[in-house]
């Protein structure tokens, strides 16, 4: 029986969305710097946020390859929307889906899938970034729940989220083994949001600090077994990194596409700059980087789908694809000449937005350290 190929079909469909709804408006949306509520809701209606969850449970029934395909296409159009969408599809909802009660799912997970509620993930603290074992946000057991105190920072979607998945320490002496995830609804008394950060790039992704002061959550808001926080985080870390690599691929494609178009349009000394070998060399390098990023990323994605441990592969993909995206954005600002320095053209946005990818999902310094270790050093 003839059937369509899901990856092709979804890529084409998302590409049409990106070309119609994002590419023409990306510059304007970026300038406004607001949370793109309408687009967010539209993605919800399209079932984008449910891509990693089974259809019978309110998701769209896709695998990691399809998830990366969608992330890549969205990032090609507007990195901040892609980042918001990735947060909503993976980190912001994963633990609710896996460990939440039916009531929690009904109240938070399903509306999040439909784009009616914004999800979010609180990991980093002012004093604990890469060093998560040092997390000091404390959840203290009370008779019928937990009291949460502490501070989280670099919370993507923080200012607009309806609920938070928060990494807390329940037993500081146990370090990693005392970590647990908690669901904290935005309307919990004692929860306060800081002012949105003024960001270099991905200006529609709203990020802020979240302070918890005696925030009470009931027992069933602890997501996952006691002390399982770090294990559960590790269980999706490879996917987070693979997804981040896919975002970087999208950015590379956007930059490469714009550069090729521009090289054909821009004429100097009587011919278009596409005719000059130094421009050709830049384009060639970008194309090779892109292809290599794809191979690494989709290899890792297939391993995730096949349940093969692949933190190494995912980390390599994230490291390489993101660095390649930085190179692509850098070269784009050069190929565009002085226009690359103008806020009216796209390269500046790629140049700013790609920085976001450097930190999310693990800094490159940490990744390099780990990769070296895994390589046998």
């Amino acid at each position, binding site marked *: 029986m003839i059937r369509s190929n899901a990856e092709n*079909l*979804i890529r084409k469909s998302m590409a*049409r*969305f990106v070309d119609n709804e994002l590419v023409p408006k990306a510059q304007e949306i970026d300038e406004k710097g607001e949370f793109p509520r309408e687009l967010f809701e539209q993605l919800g209606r399209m079932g984008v946020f449910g891509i990693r969850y089974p259809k019978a449970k309110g998701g769209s029934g896709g695998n990691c390859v*399809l998830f990366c395909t969608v992330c890549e296409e969205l990032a090609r159009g507007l990195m901040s929307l892609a980042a918001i969408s990735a947060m909503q599809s993976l980190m912001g909802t994963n633990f609710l889906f896996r460990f939440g009660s039916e009531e929690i799912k009904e109240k938070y997970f399903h509306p999040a899938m439909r784009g009616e509620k914004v999800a979010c993930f609180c990991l980093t603290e002012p004093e604990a970034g890469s060093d998560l074992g040092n997390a000091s946000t404390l959840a203290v057991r009370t008779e019928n729940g937990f009291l949460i105190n502490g501070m989280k920072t670099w919370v993507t979607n923080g200012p607009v989220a309806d609920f938070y998945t928060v990494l807390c320490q329940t037993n500081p002496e146990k370090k990693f083994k005392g970590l647990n995830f908690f669901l904290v609804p935005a309307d919990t008394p004692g929860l306060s949001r800081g002012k949105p950060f003024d960001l270099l790039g991905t200006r529609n992704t709203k990020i802020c600090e979240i302070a918890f002061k005696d925030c009470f959550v009931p027992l069933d808001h602890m997501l996952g077994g006691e002390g399982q926080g770090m294990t559960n985080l590790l269980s999706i870390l490879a996917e987070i990194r693979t997804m981040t690599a896919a975002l970087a691929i999208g950015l590379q494609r956007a930059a490469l596409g714009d550069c090729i178009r521009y090289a054909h349009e821009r004429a100097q000394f009587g011919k278009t700059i596409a005719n000059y070998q130094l421009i050709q060399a830049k384009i060639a390098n970008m194309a090779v980087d892109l292809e290599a990023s794809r191979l690494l990323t989709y290899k890792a994605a297939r391993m995730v789908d096949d349940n093969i441990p692949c933190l190494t592969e995912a980390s390599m993909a994230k490291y390489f694809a993101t660095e390649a995206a930085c190179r692509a954005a850098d070269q784009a600002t050069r190929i565009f000449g002085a226009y690359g320095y103008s806020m009216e053209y796209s390269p500046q946005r790629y140049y700013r937005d790609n920085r976001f990818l450097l930190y999310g999902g693990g800094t490159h310094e940490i990744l390099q350290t780990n990769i070296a270790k895994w390589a046998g050093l």
Partner: protein
Amino acid sequence: MDIVVLIKQVPDSSEVKLDPKTGHLLREGIGAIMNPDDRHALEAAVRLKEAHGGRIVVLSMGPAQAIDVVSEAIGMGADEAVLLSDSAFAGADTWATSSTLGKAIEKIGKYDLIICGRQAIDGDTAQIGPQVAEYLGLPQVTYVFDIEAVTDGTVVVKKRLEDGYEKVQCDLPALLTVIAEVNRTRYPAIGNLIDACGEQAPITIWNAADIGVMTCDVGLAGSLTHVIRTFAPKGGRQTQMLEGDTGTVVRTLLEKLRENHLVLTDSGVLSAECREGKLS
């Protein structure tokens, strides 16, 4: 309310390029898309289904690759899709196409409404809708830009005219052809797209035997009209570049226009032929 929607896979015309040397169409590497008007037809059907319930069957005729547009239609909310695919169907003109689609709709059987796009961007004929309606003996309303109400046994629509519109009430079952103005289309749902690619997808493929037609009645063999020649349009006008300062070029231009009977009158510029042809 059971609806059959006719859709077609067409080359993405925005990518159509000409060979600069021969002036021929370069079709290589051109993507294929769902015909834009048909997408609006499907959206109209999905909205009617959302309001009134019922089932939507999408019907398309094309090569095996056209499976992608029927899968996309499932993604947008069609319940079922039928792809008519057979080498015998190739090269059909609108006569043979409407016979084939008509036969397939007879086999599908149950419907209150058939909706199709006004025309396909590769042929621009706008003939399939009315010809299928005639084949099935259904009333038709073309150029529909608003489906106002569906009541028991009738549909009320607005039909676009060159200088306004008409409101028409039509008995069901009927066939409507819609224009882009009728709605804003949705993007397919990811979950439905994934389903459409699965083994269990509600997509059926029918060949000539499945719908009970003779190969001599379909495709090129069953066509009444035939293309005998294709050629590049005479692209090259004799371009005359006007030289001189701004005042001079504009003066020269106005002279040239006058030479070609494009003269200034009270009501504006009209060519000689046009004025002669104007009704008094």
